[in-house]
């Protein structure tokens, strides 16, 4: 049976792949612990990412990365998220921010496309940690069996644009939270 309520999961593992920003990792760790009321572990991975690079698309294959995280880093009774800073794609889409196994135990998320500068806006870098955080919470939500939610502000709203991410909160709406905590 899938382990998909917060009561059944005793740990969330954040595995970072080449993320040097210590402050960011600490924000993610602390906030995710708070949102999911759960122990959160951080580990730096040493896996070489070259094999996941698609030369033709100049992007990294998120399906293979997700599989790799699931095989090499996930543990029983826990959820594991691989954190990246590279441009992710899946074969059918031009890019994705992240993805997860629905009701599974692994997810991946990348900060690559969450930076304002990529879109030529020189506004604030301050929104970057928050966007990354929302992305990670969202993917974890899928691991816990949540699907996209239409409640405005809910972190499980689908986001295909960075601005969509800014429009939602770094938390679940009451309906999603209830499902998480059942």
């Amino acid at each position, binding site marked *: 049976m899938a382990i998909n309520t917060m009561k059944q999961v005793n740990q969330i593992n954040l595995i970072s792949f080449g993320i040097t920003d210590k402050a960011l990792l600490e924000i993610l760790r602390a906030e995710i612990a*708070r949102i999911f*009321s759960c122990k959160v572990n951080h580990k730096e991975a040493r896996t070489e990412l070259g094999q996941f690079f698609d030369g033709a698309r100049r992007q990294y294959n998120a*399906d293979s990365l997700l599989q790799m995280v699931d095989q090499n880093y996930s543990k029983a009774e826990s959820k594991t998220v691989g954190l990246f800073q590279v441009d992710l*794609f*899946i*074969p*059918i*889409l*031009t*890019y*994705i921010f992240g*993805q*997860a*196994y*629905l009701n599974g135990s692994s997810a991946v998320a990348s900060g690559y496309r969450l930076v304002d*500068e*990529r*879109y*030529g*806006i*020189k*506004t604030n870098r301050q929104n970057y940690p928050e966007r990354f955080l929302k992305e990670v919470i969202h993917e974890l939500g*899928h691991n816990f069996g949540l*699907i*996209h939610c*239409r*409640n*405005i*502000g809910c972190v499980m709203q*689908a986001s*295909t*644009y960075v*601005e*969509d991410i800014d*429009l939602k909160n770094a*938390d679940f709406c*009451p309906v999603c939270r209830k499902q998480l905590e059942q």
Partner: protein
Amino acid sequence: MKKNSILIVDDEASVRDSLYNWFLEDGFEVSCAEDASKALKILDHEHFDIILADIKMPGMDGLELLRRIKQIKPDAIIIIITAFATVDTAVQALKDGAFDYVTKPFDPDDLSHLIRNALRQVSLKEENETLRERVSALEQVEDIIGESQAVKKMLTEVEQVAQSNTSVIITGESGTGKELIAKAIHANSLRKFFPLVSVHCGALTESLLESELFGHEKGAFTGAVYTRKGRFEMADNGTIFLDEIATISSKMQVELLRVLESKSFVRVGGNKTITSDFRVICATNRDLKKMVNEGSFREDLYYRLNVVNINVPPLRERKDDIPLLVNYFIAKYCKSMSRPLVNMEAAAMKRLQDYDFPGNVRELENIIERAIVVGNGKEIKLRDLPLSKPVTLSKTESLNDLEKQHIAQVLTKYSWNISRAAQALGIDRVTLYNKIKKYDLKQ
């Protein structure tokens, strides 16, 4: 709620898997078939809201599949996936009755828009099939707290206006819940499948606002590596919420009026005209009519925006709602701080009900959040509230009191040196003597 269903037909396993996962996350019931004949077999005994089929498959291709399905089910919603080289055949697909086509790999945003369009088609179809009973209950308004007549009246107005396409202007003091009302209108409109896009006009400079609203082309200025859609474009089929509309410059007022009239615009640094079908909701804490009379807000824009006006009354005019809001915010913040639920002592509640709340619901929310942080974790006490004084003093009394206290302090500071105290107070010596007499101050 019933799940929507989709059938994915593609010979490439990686494409099927990607799409399978994507639609699963989006809440669909998903089935896959690796070729057209398997798809037809499944369709024999199962219904799908949407069918997504690749055009190029060994054996029967996507176009042939499309024709066969259409013969049996003329109103099936079929989307064709093409590779770049086969756009011509995609046009053929549309002629043969495909709902739409996408060229792979596609933008997540395009896929999501396409699917929402298709879902809207599905729901229209269902509406035609069974004359759906009118949805009288408002959706997604559970976080608008309040039982007062004022709140009930507002919700009735929301219900009346939501389903139409008219512009709405929401007026009210800061912190009264204008944005919340905008969300409720959108959530109850036919546009709810599409985004509600907010723009906080007051927070942006004129040039930023322009690129924010209209977007920019790749290379429009240094650092613009990707093309970026503006808010109007993002709001296509949805709603755009322009908060603090009174703050925009007169140049932006002209631009805005033009966009509202034509529903089209050009991205910064671009020349292609882009059209977008959006609904406008605005909010302001200013008296726009007055600004029109004073000449600081365009009259034509005002009338275009102000088709329907919903006024959100200040919290002090609906004090009955205060206890409900207090309990709601206590529950909200105890939960988000992972603390056990706390009570509020009667004296503290009484003080809140006597208070005027110049910052309205937002101020109340901040007060409760702070009280939970500083409190003892069991009960919120009067002393946990940052309200210095009950506002029961009449104005003259309080001002006189203040003056008396202040003069006494300044006199003490300068050891009753009248010249220096008068200088510090910015009044002449005679006036100071008179005040000392009036307030009966003594050394």
